[in-house]
Every structure is written in structure tokens, then in C-alpha cells.
């Protein structure tokens, strides 16, 4: 079934990010993970969000990451070795979290998802109507946030002038 294939891609990509020593390999692994996640979004009838995930996350953000990794040119990735204690602690924390989640999801027993009939309007249409209707002010605020972030990046990356 398609769900298991894409879930496996997303999870394997996620594991790769943590496991690979080379940051460039980690970044490509994260791209694979994001593509699997986007496929899961589309599987859930969220077409616009899936496309946004590919364009913004797997496209723009990961290119930025790769650009910075290659710009900094890191020779030795990790300094001191990861100790056994650290690995054990991280694994234990993650296990406890997944265990709690397992208990909750097993006890949830939600109804099976109902098949949706072909909709009259696409989801992009509906989301656009919400964004430029009910959520028009937040959209403007987010625009200002992006502007401030851009100015902040320019100021941060300028060499300090005395």
C-alpha cells in the first residue's frame, strides 16, 4: 500500500539525517524525508499543502541549507565522539516519547476515514478564499515578518564596521 511506502521513505530519511556523519548526506536525506512527507499530505487530500511542502521545504529551504554547508566548507564534522551515555540517553528519551504516543494512539480507535467525493472546488480555491478573506490581517502580518527577517539577515551577514 502506498501509505506504508511513503511513511517508510519519510522515516528512513529522518533516521538518515541523524545517522550520517557528513552534513551534505544528512541534507539530502532530509530532502527525501520531506518528499515522503509531502506524499503523505497528498494522500490525505491536502494537495496545496503537499505542493507547498515540496516547493518551500524540499526546494527553497534545503537549497539554503546545502548552500551554507558548502559555503562553510566543514572538514571534520564532529569534534569529540558521541559517548555511549549520550546515545543511550537520546534513545531512551525517544523511546519513552514513542511509547507514550503508542499508548495514546492505540486507545484512540478513531473511525475509518470516509472517502471524499470529487469536490466542486479545489482546496487551493478554498484556502485562498480563507487567506484573503477571514485571515487577511494575519497574511499582512506574516508579510511584515518576512520583510523584517530579510532585513535582519542582511544586517547579520554584513561584516561588522567599526
Amino acid at each position, binding site marked *: 500500500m502506498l501509505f506504508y511506502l511513503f511513511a517508510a521513505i519519510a522515516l528512513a530519511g529522518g533516521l538518515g539525517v*541523524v545517522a550520517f556523519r557528513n552534513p551534505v548526506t544528512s541534507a539530502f536525506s532530509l530532502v527525501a524525508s520531506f518528499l515522503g*512527507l509531502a506524499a503523505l499530505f497528498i494522500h490525505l487530500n491536502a494537495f496545496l499543502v503537499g505542493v507547498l511542502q515540496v516547493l518551500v521545504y524540499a526546494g527553497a529551504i534545503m537549497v539554503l541549507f546545502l548552500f*551554507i554547508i558548502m559555503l562553510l566548507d566543514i572538514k571534520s564534522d564532529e569534534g569529540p565522539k558521541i559517548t555511549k551515555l549520550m546515545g543511550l540517553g*537520546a534513545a531512551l528519551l525517544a523511546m519513552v516519547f514513542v511509547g507514550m504516543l503508542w499508548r495514546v494512539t492505540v486507545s*484512540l*480507535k*478513531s473511525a475509518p476515514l*470516509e472517502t471524499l467525493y470529487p469536490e466542486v472546488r479545489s482546496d487551493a480555491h478554498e484556502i485562498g478564499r480563507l*487567506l484573503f478573506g477571514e485571515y487577511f490581517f494575519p497574511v499582512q502580518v506574516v508579510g511584515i515578518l518576512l520583510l523584517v527577517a530579510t532585513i535582519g*539577515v542582511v544586517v547579520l551577514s554584513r561584516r561588522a564596521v567599526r
Partner: protein
Amino acid sequence: MNQGIEPYLLVSGILFAIGFAGVVLRRNIIVIFMCLEMMLSAANLTLVAFSRHYATPLSTPDYQAHVLLFFIITVAAAEVAVGLAIIVALFRTRRSIDSDSVSALKF
């Protein structure tokens, strides 16, 4: 499609846990940052799953969740831009991106 949303929630949770373990385990600041992005994306999957959960043949999915996701992705993009600029500035002063080399604020 006749399964519930539990598999999606489980995938989301496991992906979040992997990202969390990565933040604890890795020392490379860029990899830590990538793990943070992964945790953010995993939370997005939960939003979409619940939005789909409340959809019936008669009603459309709850698109408010998709709008929230749109804002989350926008803020994440801004966060990545600023964070990577900070990492570059850090690399200029310390010549290293090891998280152990940044301990000036340590008590």
C-alpha cells in the same frame, strides 16, 4: 481508504522523536537545525491528519488547519533564513560550528 488517522499520527510522532534524538545527539549546529525543521514538519502532519479526520462526503475538510499550516511554513522559512545567518556569523568569529564551542553564556 478505510484506515483511521492513527498510522499518520504514529508516523508524525516517530518523526518528531527522531528529530528530538538528533537535537540531543548531534554536535554539528547545522544538523541540529535540520532536525528542528524535521520536528516542525512532523507536527504539520498531525494538523493535516486531523483536518482530514473531520471531513465527510458532505462537508469539506477543515481548511483552517491548512491555513495554519501555511503560516507555519512561512514562519519556518523566515526562521531558517535568520538561523543560517546567525550560524554564518558564528562561524566567522569561532571558526567552528560545533555546538560545544559556543559556551560563552554558560554559567
